[in-house]
């Protein structure tokens, strides 16, 4: 059916190429339509809200919206000397409007964050402003309190003009923008967040390491034992994996408490005196022990699924070629398990870095992590924008780890169970 031009036609007379493309496109649309419901659902309920977190974390429109006229008139002010009459007048008008709407309290809280001392002078201004005469507001406002004649305070108001701020992110790493606009560290004794970030990294790192050291031998044993024994032992890994996180945390709380089983055992074998039982819970020890046990299956399972595919004859070949068992293991077996190690470590590290429940229950004050701080700001201080900022910093970290891992090993070999 080929024509002179060399094009192959279908029975309908349409070139085959076109017909194929059409069919291809139809299939593409069909496949996409199947994915679309879930994709849309996740975009609306999950991905966009994460974007919303981003907006919240940088949003600083509150003051900008409360003083619209002031900021408009301030555009021409260079900030070197006291602002002109125009600025004072628009500030007075904005402020009167806020007082009418009873929102001046919020303004004073917000401005007080930027510079201490605003609260009292705004209060005084509210009292005096009732008797203000029309015109010459500059004189009248400056007469209320000497600080109103201080250019520093007007600069502080000006600093709140931008609708977006990086302040919450800086706070998350214990820094702030000072009055000159430079980014500086907060005082030594008030740096709490950096300690938390470091502690989170430290705990996640050591938990991953401990999990690896414990999981490697048992995954190897499970992979090399005959099926009927390994199935039985596999239950020891899978039962904790399927058991509720809270149940496992509860069991550690029972074990680690001062009158608990572990302490009883230590006393029994004479390791510690009965009246001097060590505190093993509500500190870092508790967090380490409980988190390692809880995350261990996540390391064993990927390791096992990789080790299962390694033929035992490889080790035998290594040995028969003159290697000692250790050399054969190190040169042949170990390199083959690296994808499993990568997957397990990634999984455990990412889970550990965002852990919340276990540290909150057994961690006490010295064993809590960054997620606990996020939850604290969400539920107790209600500083949602700060919680969002910290959450996004954590998310950025997780995504970075994921990206590096993908470059090094590839994500495709993550398996479940």
């Amino acid at each position, binding site marked *: 059916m080929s024509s002179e031009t060399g094009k192959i036609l279908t029975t309908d007379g349409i070139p085959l190429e076109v017909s194929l493309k059409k069919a291809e496109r139809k299939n593409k649309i069909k496949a996409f339509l199947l994915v679309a419901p879930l994709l849309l*659902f996740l975009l609306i309920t999950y991905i966009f809200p*994460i974007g919303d977190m981003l907006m919240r974390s940088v949003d600083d429109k509150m003051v900008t919206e409360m003083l619209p006229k002031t900021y408009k008139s301030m555009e021409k002010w260079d900030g070197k000397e006291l602002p002109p009459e125009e600025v004072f007048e628009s500030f007075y008008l904005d402020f009167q409007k806020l007082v009418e709407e009873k929102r001046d309290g919020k303004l004073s809280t917000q401005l007080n964050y930027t510079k201490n001392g605003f609260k009292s002078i705004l209060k005084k201004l509210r009292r005096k402003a009732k008797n203000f005469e029309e015109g010459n507001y500059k004189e009248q406002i400056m007469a209320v309190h000497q600080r109103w004649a201080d250019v520093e305070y007007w600069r502080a108001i000006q600093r709140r003009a931008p609708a977006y701020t990086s302040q919450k992110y800086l706070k998350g790493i214990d820094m702030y923008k000072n009055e000159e606009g430079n980014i500086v560290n907060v005082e030594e004794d008030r740096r709490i967040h950096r300690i938390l970030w470091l502690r989170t990294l430290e705990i996640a790192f050591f938990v991953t390491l401990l999990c690896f050291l414990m999981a490697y031998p*048992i995954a190897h044993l499970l992979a090399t*034992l005959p099926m009927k024994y390994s199935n039985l032992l596999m239950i020891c890994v899978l039962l904790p994996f399927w058991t509720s*996180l809270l*149940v496992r945390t509860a069991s*550690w709380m029972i074990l680690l408490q001062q009158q608990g089983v572990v302490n009883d055992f230590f006393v029994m074998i004479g390791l510690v005196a009965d009246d001097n039982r060590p505190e093993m819970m509500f500190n870092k020890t508790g967090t380490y022990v409980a988190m390692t046990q809880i995350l261990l299956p996540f390391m064993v399972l990927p390791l096992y699924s990789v080790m299962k595919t390694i033929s035992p004859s490889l080790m035998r070949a290594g040995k028969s070629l003159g290697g000692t068992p250790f050399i054969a293991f190190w040169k042949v077996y170990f390199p083959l398990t690296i994808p499993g190690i990568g997957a397990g470590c990634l999984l455990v590290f990412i889970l550990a870095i*965002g852990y919340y429940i276990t540290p909150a229950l057994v961690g006490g004050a010295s064993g809590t992590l960054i997620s606990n701080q996020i939850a604290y700001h969400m539920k107790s201080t209600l500083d949602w924008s700060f919680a969002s900022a910290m959450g996004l910093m954590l998310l950025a970290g997780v995504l970075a780890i994921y990206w590096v891992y993908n470059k090094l090993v590839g994500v495709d070999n993550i398996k*479940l169970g």
Partner: protein
Amino acid sequence: MALPKYTETRYRVWHYFYITICTCVFFFLIAPLFVIFPLSFNAEEFLSFSEGMKNLDPDAFSLRWYKDMIYGTKNPWGLAAKNSFIIAIFATLGSVILGTVAALGLSSRHMPYKGLIMATLISPMIVPLIISGVAIFFFMAKAGLAATHTGIVLAHIILGTPFVVITVTATLSGFDHSVTRAASSLGSDPVNTFMKITLPLILPGVISGGLFAFVTSFDEVVVVLFLAGLENTTIPIQMWTGLREQLSPTILAVATCLIILSTLILVTAELLRRRSERLRGINR
């Protein structure tokens, strides 16, 4: 793991060392769960083994805390269990339907931007739960669904679908597409083909994905803590409050029930995995 007779002493020592280490690790993994069993039958109010229990005195054991769990005053566990099951069942249904359909699309070789879409679909599994919790809370608060069952079910569908997507795409990767083509050529419409041919073959994958989704929802506490009101309390929330405030033996009774439940789920999951491997012709 018997050693051959010619093994040198140092390797023999190493081998026994290795077995000892493995035994310790297995013990570390499983033993904590078994502490809960005997203590939940404690006749006294303490969370450590009493003298009577150590001597296996029958009077030291009782069903007191199980009775308290079921008939106790104020009894938060009944409502919590009811809520947990309702939420988990609906969340599982939602996850399974959305996830399976999406996995069918994703497994098609015509799917455009496969990597990007897959990454989006499984993102709730990668993003730390606390962040998911904050994001979902913002959405539910705006949509007016905070402190409602619907809100929690939707949240758990978000968290559960990645598991279904992963298990079902894995099952579909070994799927022989010529059987569906055969069905179509014999005059079956796509829905009929799916129900009669595809679904029965991928069912083990769908069910094990559903089990993951069920357990995720049933155990989930971080997101629910943000979303739940007093009416929506679930078993994990009750346990969380109990563990934070006063560690009572009633919690251990509940924990024992949960361990039994997870054992049942484990057995089901294992049986399904083996069946799926047999169906896909993977022999080990």
